[in-house]
């Protein structure tokens, strides 16, 4: 297959789909990365948070208010509350342990099981889907290929979240507390930062982002209890490639993986789903701090 015959295969729709997949991955990965960067906790339950966000949004839209955007906000905030409760009740007990990293990983894995089963208990094992909000539910045709306009909204919102987070971390007082605490917890505590409360706040924020990712993706995918298990692996790949704790890394990594998921199968038929894992292994071996920037921003 020559290069010229490859080019027409990549339609604009594929690129848009890849970027929208990347956007949902960014929203889950940036929360994961933020929590790791500040608290040092690798939250295995983050995929569960994403799934929960999608379910709450679906439930609100179909049972409470027929407004997608209100449901998205409710979904994201509800997940934030669940996340903060988990941090407050369980994870904070482990910060001072000798093997705290592994204990945190195991406890958050325990919450993976709990959230998964709770979701199945409440909503059953079937899968749900909803339409994108009416305003954006139309097809766009660009360069001969067609995609749903809502995908562009998701991409735009992901970029918006990246910018807002960046401004929040670099320009606000709370952001400077977060930065200070992530680089030296003891010193921040000594200077009067209420570290436990800040940690709960960061965990809340990270969980809200995961919930937002799930909520916004609800119209783009089938929402089922298996969703959490799938996206957490993708999110791990993204944060490893981007660098655990790096926000811009999460963005670049997420878009990379999104494009890979969208375009990969067209280039390599066999073994294409292995490539992200291979990339994860290689990055961990060569640059464990990630390809883009180090711990921090």
């Amino acid at each position, binding site marked *: 297959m020559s290069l010229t015959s490859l080019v027409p295969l990549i339609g604009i729709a594929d690129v848009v789909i890849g970027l929208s997949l990347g956007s949902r991955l960014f929203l889950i990965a940036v929360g994961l990365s933020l929590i790791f960067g500040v608290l040092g906790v*690798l939250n295995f339950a983050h995929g569960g948070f994403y799934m929960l966000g999608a379910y709450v949004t679906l439930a609100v839209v179909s049972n409470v208010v027929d407004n997608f955007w209100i449901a998205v906000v409710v979904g994201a905030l509800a997940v934030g509350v669940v996340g903060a409760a988990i941090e407050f009740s*369980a994870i904070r*007990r*482990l910060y*001072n*342990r*000798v*093997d705290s*990293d*592994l*204990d945190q*990983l*195991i*406890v958050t*894995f*325990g*919450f*993976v*099981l*709990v959230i*998964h*089963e*709770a979701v*199945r*208990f409440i909503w059953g094992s079937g899968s749900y889907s909803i339409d994108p909000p009416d305003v954006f539910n139309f097809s766009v045709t660009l360069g001969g290929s067609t995609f749903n306009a809502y995908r562009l909204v998701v991409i735009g919102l992901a970029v918006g979240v990246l910018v807002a987070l960046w401004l929040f971390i670099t320009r606000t007082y709370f952001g400077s507390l977060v930065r200070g605490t992530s680089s030296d917890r003891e010193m921040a505590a000594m200077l009067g930062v209420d570290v436990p409360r800040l940690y709960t706040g960061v965990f809340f924020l990270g969980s809200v982002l995961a919930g937002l990712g799930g909520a916004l993706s609800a119209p783009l995918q089938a929402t089922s209890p298996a969703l959490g*298990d799938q996206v957490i*692996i993708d999110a*791990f*790949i993204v944060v*490893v490639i981007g660098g655990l704790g790096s926000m811009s890394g999460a963005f670049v990594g997420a878009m990379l993986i999104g494009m890979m998921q969208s375009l990969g199968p067209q280039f390599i038929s*066999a*073994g*294409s*789903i*292995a490539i992200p*894992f*291979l990339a*994860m*292994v290689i990055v*961990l*071996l060569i640059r*464990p701090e990630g390809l883009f920037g180090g711990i921090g921003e």
Partner: protein
Amino acid sequence: MSATDTGGRVSRFGSAVAEGWTRERFGLLGAVALVLIALAPPFQVYLFTDFLVVALFALGFNLLYGYTGLLSFGHGLFYAGGAYGIAIVLRDLGPVIADIVGAGISPLVTFVLGGVVGLVLVVLVAVPVGWLSVRLEEIYFALITLAFGMLGYSLIIQDPAGLTNGTDGVIVLLGTVDLGGFSLRIGGRRIYYAISAVTVVAATYGVWRVVNSPFGTVCKAIRESPDRAAALGIDVGHHRWMTFIVSAAVVGIAGVLRAGLASVASPGLTHWSTSAIAVIATVIGGATYFYGPIVGAFIFLYIRWAISRFPALEAYWELFFGALLIAVVLFFKQGAVGGLLLLRDRLFGDGDGDGGGGGGGGALNGGQASTAADDGAESGDDNARADRGDNS
């Protein structure tokens, strides 16, 4: 908990041995129990075989987690490696072997050869994977093993080499040995149980010997303090690598047995959620004890079975294990074996204020005390680990 507490516990264990409960008697009792189980109803025999296989899986996993402090979320790769090794040999080499050794005995020869191939395959995979993985520590090790496991998973389901039959997996037919009037169905519940029991007991003994060998002592030294071990001239990376390979090999044997028990080698074995079973069993049983993973596997399978008796709860058994996992890590790091030892001390101890740190209260009290020790300083952790070493 203090160092003297652990010392006391171990010495009482020692005195129990002196009173006539020798290791031989324990062994004999165990052997009698294993034989009696073979006479149980078929489903119970199956359940117990399942327990033995998961126990070996968790035991192999814990060589790495409990003994060297490396948490792998990718041991499903080696579990599947063993399973696919034997499954592919049975599928592709059965007729060839029948031509060589004769049809009557060929199922047994194929089964044994398949098991050996499965084990060799696992070691061949574990050598490079381990070499690369042990360069990383803590969550980075967990992440790279997760990545290797999922890499294996995706290769198995996409099957670029045409060996693994994609998402359907490879059917495992064990066949019947036929020697004149004497015939033996290898896959029969009781026969397969006997094979599994002998294999698992032998493998467990092997692991026990490794743990208590000079090699095991080096592992423990590395676990306590990699820096101090390195200062003593121990090649830390090399020993971690070797432990990784031994751990994978043990898990590979469990995988071989799994294939025969489930009659299929399926890609799900490689998925991280299968690797997590070893984590759940080990943590619940008590990673700081040699027998912890075995007790944990017992709890895992039998509680799951008990839950399945109640149709309303059956579908949600994972909820129970999730909650149990959280509770054990948060409040009772010693797991079930720690709890049992504490209980034994309370029932049979000589009442010198041991176990839970000052007596009084139930197991929970002891759990909090030991958690506090974990929380506090390294000494608490050392204490728990020294305990494991002596009890193994």
